[in-house]
């Protein structure tokens, strides 16, 4: 039995309304528990005056899967740094850097079902942090066929359930709904109400069907949406149309910075952050993550081949990869350098910060850079300082393209996030949005994933190097040094669905795909192998599904 006590830290746990009042935090065998003050423990740390939070949770960071590895292959020159740092670090360095920053769970948002084993293998080699992935749907041709054939909704829903289970995913992401597939038929643009050139279905139908399916399957994380027209000036209209398509169903709109552009002004490119924030404020069932851009070299890796191909001319350095994949989806890898003196990049930077600051309810916003697409995750401490420190933000804004520096709405926003709000954006909200009931909080019974920070007026310094980081009660990092590297666990859900759908998938697989149907599903034992010894299977509970409700309770497996 292993016991731990952190004595006298200022605990921030917004789930339980704790706002920095000092108390002891104790753990036994990886779980937070009450231990009497005079009882002996195996290890005790005096953290008086320090800030204690649950371990950070990144719910949208491209840390594994084919596209990330292609980005590494494409850009060996960015790996020359002696410690292996780059915009797409190796799996090992990724785990270490996250832990060094106090993050203990990270989620890959774009796992292709066809690439799911690879993704789990790769994530399994990310040490320390727990991980999981959202499987991509909405561009796979069976789904589009079912919609085109006007199949019963229940069959589509069962297919969604089958896919989640087969890929061992935690949720579902839709990327440019229908657009990746449409690009395979040489369609170069797809608005929310425009028909897919081959299947005739609209993104509106794709989004609504998937959101409804996840709700009925009881998947804790609502549909994760990378909306249509990423990066296109004026795309706020399609982003708002996407929210409209949901008709009140819950959903998570991801990297909204890339989807909040107007087309006003001399350059036909403007901030529409206020319009998006107003929509989010009016829709409590919607959550967002921002996808903040950070100036410097990075690489964009996305399933959105339609948009990546359109942006390929902007590649820096001038090389890029595109792939159509297995009638499933695709991937595009385009290196990119965000420049302070570029009007567009400077405005993107301002739009991202405006979005963080204009959404009223912090529980609806998650801190991301869409790593590595907006910038590497290692820039989170810098981003936190921008959000917490108005004068620092103004200093940075003043160095940007003069038109943006002079005119950005951001100048007039006075809000500075509090430590409690940062705690929500970086742990409590993502835990709630993903259905992780024992993470992102510090009450008894929760997992002992803990980050302890030294108070510093420079919030970047403070958040860059926590004094102590614990994963499931084990000390893993101390003052920025990794002291233990346990294997992370993998989160997934096993929704209830009608197995009769397997015949449809199997027939389709035999007719169109290149791998035997018996290999479509990743079993639990196989998932263990992917994860490396010690990596635990973290089965996340579904809420009661529509089938279960109809049957009057939990169905037998």
């Amino acid at each position: 039995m292993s016991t731990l006590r952190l004595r006298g830290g200022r605990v921030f746990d917004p789930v339980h309304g704790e706002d920095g009042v000092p108390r002891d935090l104790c753990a036994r065998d990886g779980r937070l528990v009450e231990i009497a003050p005079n009882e002996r423990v195996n290890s005790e740390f005096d953290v008086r005056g320090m800030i204690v939070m649950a371990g950070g949770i990144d719910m949208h960071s491209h840390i594994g899967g084919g596209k990330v590895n292609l980005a590494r292959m494409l850009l060996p020159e960015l790996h020359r740094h002696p410690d292996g740092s780059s915009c797409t670090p190796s799996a090992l360095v990724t785990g270490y850097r996250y832990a060094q920053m106090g993050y203990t769970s990270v989620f890959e948002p774009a796992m292709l079902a066809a690439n799911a084993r690879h993704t789990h293998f790769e994530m399994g080699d990310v040490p320390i942090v727990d991980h999981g992935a959202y499987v991509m749907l909405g561009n796979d041709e069976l789904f589009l066929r079912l919609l085109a054939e006007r199949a019963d909704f229940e069959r589509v829903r069962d297919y969604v359930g089958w896919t989640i289970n087969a890929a061992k995913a935690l949720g579902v992401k839709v990327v440019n709904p229908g657009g990746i597939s449409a690009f395979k038929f040489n369609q170069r643009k797809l608005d929310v109400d425009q028909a897919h050139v081959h299947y005739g279905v609209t993104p509106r139908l794709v989004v609504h069907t998937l959101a409804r399916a996840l709700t009925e399957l009881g998947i804790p994380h609502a549909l994760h949406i990378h909306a249509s027209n990423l990066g296109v000036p004026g795309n706020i209209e399609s982003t708002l149309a996407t929210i409209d398509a949901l008709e009140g169903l819950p959903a998570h709109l991801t990297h909204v910075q890339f989807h909040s552009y107007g087309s006003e002004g001399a350059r036909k490119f403007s901030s529409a952050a206020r319009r998006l924030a107003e929509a989010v404020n009016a829709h409590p069932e919607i959550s967002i993550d921002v996808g903040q851009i950070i100036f410097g070299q990075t690489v964009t890796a996305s399933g959105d081949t339609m948009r990546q191909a359109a942006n390929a001319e902007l590649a820096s350095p001038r090389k890029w990869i595109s792939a159509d994949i297995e009638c499933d989806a695709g991937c595009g890898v385009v290196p990119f350098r965000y420049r302070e003196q570029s009007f567009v990049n400077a405005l993107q930077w301002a739009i991202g910060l405006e979005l963080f600051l204009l959404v009223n309810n912090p529980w609806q916003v998650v801190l991301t850079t869409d790593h590595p697409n907006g910038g590497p995750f290692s820039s989170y401490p810098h981003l936190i300082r921008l959000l917490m420190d108005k004068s620092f933000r103004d200093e940075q804004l003043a160095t940007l393209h003069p038109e943006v520096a002079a005119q950005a709405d951001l100048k007039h926003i006075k809000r500075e996030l509090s430590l409690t709000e940062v705690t929500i954006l970086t742990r409590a909200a993502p835990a709630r949005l993903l259905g992780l009931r024992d993470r992102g909080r510090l009450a008894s019974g929760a997992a002992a994933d803990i980050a302890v920070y030294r108070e510093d007026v420079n919030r970047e310094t403070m958040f860059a190097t926590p004094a102590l980081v614990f994963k499931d009660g084990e000390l893993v990092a101390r003052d920025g040094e990794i002291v233990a590297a346990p294997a992370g666990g993998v989160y997934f859900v096993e929704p209830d669905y009608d197995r009769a759908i397997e015949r449809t998938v199997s027939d389709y697989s035999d007719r169109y795909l290149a791998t035997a149907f018996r290999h479509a599903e990743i079993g639990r034992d196989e998932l263990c192998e992917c994860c490396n010894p010690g990596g635990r299977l973290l089965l996340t509970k579904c809420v009661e599904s529509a089938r279960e409700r109809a049957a009057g309770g939990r169905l037998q497996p």
Partner: protein
Amino acid sequence: MTEAAGALVATPATEQQARPWTCPFCALLCDRFGVTTDTDGSFALVGSRCPRAMRSLGQFSACTEPASATIDGAPVSLDAALDAAARILARARQPLFAGLATDLAGARALFRLGSACHAIFDHAHGETMLPGLRALQDRGVIQTTLAEIRSRADLLVCLGTLPSLRYPEFFRRIAPAVDTATRDVVFVGVDVDPALGGENASRVDLQNDWFETLAILNALARKRRLVTKAPALAALVERLLAARYAVLVWEAAALPGTQIALLVESINDLLRTLNRSTRAGGLALAGNDGALSFNQALTWMSGLPLRTGLHASGQDHEPHRYSSQRLLSDGATDALLWISAFGAELKPPPTQVPTVLLGHPALSSAGKDSVFIPVSAPGIGSAGHLTRIDGVVVVPLTALFADSTPTVASIATHLLDRVKALRS
């Protein structure tokens, strides 16, 4: 009567008797065939006449006695062999891990061992993996996968390759799906592949050499005016531009000369041009014997692809300098760890440096300063995973019999423990 019963047992296996199997012997990883096991332990392929799979299966038997490890050719216990192998690796100042014919679990374990030994990694097929990788690193690529080709390709152009030579089931794997448009197949610089089924096939000759041919194709695709007359190539470009989804297939092992990466770059250029107005994708035929899998695993674990060294001073990716042949002939390495788990065909290069060999029992080496440890073949004696030819799909392998021989992953893990102990 006895004879008749014997004859019944020896009746050729039917599909019903065959166990589903995934073939690990080329990067296509066919998983719709079966295998039967005869009473003498030999394996027979059902549902395919792939010569590569049949030849490779012939190297294995379910009834073989486990082979012994050897030191300098003399049989020893596994422990003694592991001790000797660990001494070689721990003593080496610049070990080379090569061959690398193993599955993903083997790759993961060898990476950890290589990190501890500061090894350089190159695969037995490093030379044919290199052109694609170099072209990717210089300008990028546009790729497609087997199911995309099956469902979408209305024009397939094989550039200098007869795919069925090294990938016998290639055309079956990409056979057009039932309701796909008719497909034309064009062979440039080679005759029509005899393995091709009912599709419309034709041949287009080279214009002098590959450099000139690809330059002309690129120029014509960009609508440039040419002084040179090349009607056959012009007609091919017209077809490529008119196709809804053209696929260019190439194979580094089949292209001539020493500057194959430049040819591949030119193929990728053509794909970029075609994709301005229509859709097209490329497929490289390469990556057998776990080369693609090792490249993927090394890339995610180190951040860098094959031909990378994990030195104490940091990692270093040297696509030319870190060729096994070159390192061995330059005397730039002082120990070789050679892995060949899928069969006895991939032999280590002749060398004077101390060698540790993990491989098929028939590879057993008698050389001086050599340690041989037999390992189980993924997909034959043990389960495993490999990456398919298009780099996207990881396919599970299942064992055909209960092999008591250890896997590459378990040997590498034992070696790591011993190397660490020797170093401390």
